[in-house]
């Protein structure tokens, strides 16, 4: 059986790293391997998605179809051919005191 091909949805400011494409294809059995495949092909994405320890940045959320992988199997969530994988930031901040 061949490795699943999925569609990755790229947030607006990261499209400068994907030749201005809003969606790109990647291959992988799991979210982890699909994201690895993605950053191999578009290396400028790496520091945006991962911290220096190689973990996904805290504000980076990954959805497979309409489910947050946090409520599935995290980066080990299995992918099937044609799945829609979205990179979704959570946003926070505020004045200091």
């Amino acid at each position, binding site marked *: 059986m061949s490795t699943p091909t999925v569609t990755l949805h790229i947030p*607006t400011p990261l499209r400068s790293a994907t030749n201005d494409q809003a969606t790109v294809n990647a291959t992988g059995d799991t979210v982890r391997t699909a994201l690895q495949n993605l950053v191999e092909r578009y290396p400028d994405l790496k520091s*945006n998605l991962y911290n220096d320890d190689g973990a996904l940045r805290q*504000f980076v959320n990954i959805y497979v179809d309409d489910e947050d992988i946090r409520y599935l199997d995290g980066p080990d969530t299995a992918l099937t051919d044609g799945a829609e994988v979205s990179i979704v930031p959570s946003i926070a901040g*505020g004045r*200091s005191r």
Partner: protein
Amino acid sequence: MIASPDVLQAIRAHGESGYPEEICGFLLGRIQDGTNVVTAIERVDNEQDANRERRYLIPPDAFREAQRAATEQSLDIVGIYHSHPDHPAQPSATDLEQATFSGYTYAIVSVDNGTARNITAWQLAPDRSRFTEEPIRTEAPA
């Protein structure tokens, strides 16, 4: 960023209506020649549980909803705005620590005693070390 006076006024109005809590939302528009051109805003509930006068939170589900609203208008999310009640329109250490991707415009409106004052716009440096101020131009987008 480039934004119409209407967009800037809508951000001020949101800041005033939410005072003394922080309000937040998305800047919708397009990237033209590397500049974020903002043509609409999308208000979002501040989902921070505590300290809402000095903290805001937009969870990923709210981002996805705003993305759908943007797509319906053939727009993209190009930035985020929030208010600083009784505080200058300068990014705080919290804003820097919790910043998301570089490339978004981060707009801040200061609201003094219920009245919106100035709006500033900022870009996160690619190495995430600091914010640099981004000029706000108000001409109508081409």
